[in-house]
């Protein structure tokens, strides 16, 4: 467990961050080291070369694409609104890395990295399903968890919690929400 300070340890760049700074100096936007999680923010156009580098370079050697998701900063009013978050794990070196790529709302797309790891395919589909972030070059970008007729993208913050989809019967839900006894 890390020390109980909230002071930013983020100032000192980690080894991987330094490496990425050297290699992709023009695309690296930001980095931090909060709570020991090495994190870099990169321009979304560079996601494919960066991931390629992370997978193939012997100093990185990230065999595992652990997780791919997005975060919606709508309520925080941040611009760009979305951030696609990649988590990587290297078994050879034992380190982890988080890569984030900001995606604006009006041009909601990022390049697909499905050719680098086979696991990416479904993660990108899920991300599209949930956030509406388009992964250009993805072979089969269809809904994964929701059904085809679903309208909207449920994990966007402006998708209301209690929104009724047209395919659902409203009657039963009204009944359930009526709290208390007759």
């Amino acid at each position, binding site marked *: *467990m*890390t*020390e*109980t*300070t*909230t002071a930013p340890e983020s100032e000192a760049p980690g080894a991987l961050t330094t490496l990425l700074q050297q290699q992709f100096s023009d695309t690296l936007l930001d980095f931090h080291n*909060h*709570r020991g*999680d090495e*994190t870099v923010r990169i321009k979304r156009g560079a996601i494919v070369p960066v991931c390629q580098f992370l997978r193939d370079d012997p100093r990185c050697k990230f*065999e*595992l*694409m*652990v*997780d791919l*998701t997005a*975060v*919606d*900063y709508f*309520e*925080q009013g941040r611009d760009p609104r979305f951030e696609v*978050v990649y*988590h990587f*794990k290297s*078994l050879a070196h*034992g380190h*982890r890395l*988080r890569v984030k790529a900001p995606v604006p709302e009006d041009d909601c797309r990022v390049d697909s990295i499905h050719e680098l*790891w*086979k*696991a990416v*395919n*479904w*993660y990108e589909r899920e991300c599209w399903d*949930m956030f509406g972030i388009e992964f250009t070059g993805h072979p*089969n970008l269809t*809904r*994964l*968890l*929701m*059904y085809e007729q679903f309208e909207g993208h*449920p*994990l966007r*913050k402006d*998708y209301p*919690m209690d929104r009724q989809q047209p395919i659902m019967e409203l009657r039963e839900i009204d009944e359930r929400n009526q709290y208390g006894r007759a």
Partner: protein
Amino acid sequence: MSMETALAEPQLAGLPIEADEDTSIMAIEVGPEHPAMHGIVRFTTYVDGEMIVDMIPEIGYLHRGFEKESENSKWIQVIPYTDRLNYVSPLLNNIGYSMAVEKLFGAEVPRRAEYTRVIMGEISRITDHLTCVGAAAMEVGAFTFFLWFIKAREYLWELIEQVSGARMTTNWTRFGGNATDLPDGFLDDLQERLDKVKDILDECDKLLSKNKIFIDRVKDVGTISKEDALSFGFSGPMLRACGVPFDVRRSDPHSVYDELDFEIPVGTVGDCFDRYLVRMEEMRQSISIIEQAADKMPYGPIMTDQRWVDYPDKKEVYGNIEGLIEHFKMVMEGHQPPEGEAYAVVEGGNGEVGFYVVSDGSGDPVRVRLRPPCFNYVQAMKHMTVGHYIADIVPIFGSINMIGGELDR
């Protein structure tokens, strides 16, 4: 149409084939309602005779909006939801989520709490493996094996009940510690029950592990190579069965696992037989971990004394007004971890369970993301089943231990 020609057909390699009278290919819907589908998942399987030529997994039937629900809750209210993710090892999810939020807080967990977490987590892992191996064995016909395992699981769930107050919906961890300490006499009871579980494991091992009928069913079935497994993002027993000794408990040591001695079982081939053996061995290792942790169990508090991480002590709440106000504020406004993001991993029952949490400093999470291990396994189902018989779906699917709640969230 033979296997080779069927695979050579361009449309078969990719997306749905129209199964019509001209081809000998038949489409079979395995699931969503099917006895071998634990949880609900659908495999549209294309078979040539009994040989699978293509398969389209479809998930989402159990999607309950865990992440959306969490983002509309307070931080503490997410813990009960995590029980329902992997519902055969809920404690590991509790622990993972709490670790993620503790990482945000920068909170330190007392050692006794860590040791109890290890014990409870390993019990949970055993129940997970018991369910998985038992169910997989049941589906290849070893029903007795399954019910003996269920009996063993029953012993362990009663233990979990003694500590947390519920068998499956445990809601046991809190930020900075655990809700309850181990009750009196728990460690003796634990040892007694672990001995029973060990006996059952030995019996079941004799019953099945050397039975040629069983070996025939699982050997060289659902084989996946090391490279493919890594590319598909496998973790946990599935990856270890391929021969990669990757265990989050060792690679990213959390809790007090680096003070405990255990071996990581690995397989060689990466087929269902290896997965079965790895899981069987892992249960024995877990028992040994529990015994070590019980021996080393330190005395001390089970909650961190850091303020604003968890509710103040009940004595404070009842005794003085500051404590009461702090308690009131924490309940009404929720726990407020500092702004930032954290990714915490635990070795779950069937792989790396990761929680990615983002906070903006308020009482409501911005993002709670679960990285489900079986998501990757179900994605690889097509890769593992094509070329096998339709009956092989059952052991392969059993061995990946898909948990619907975790997969669809």
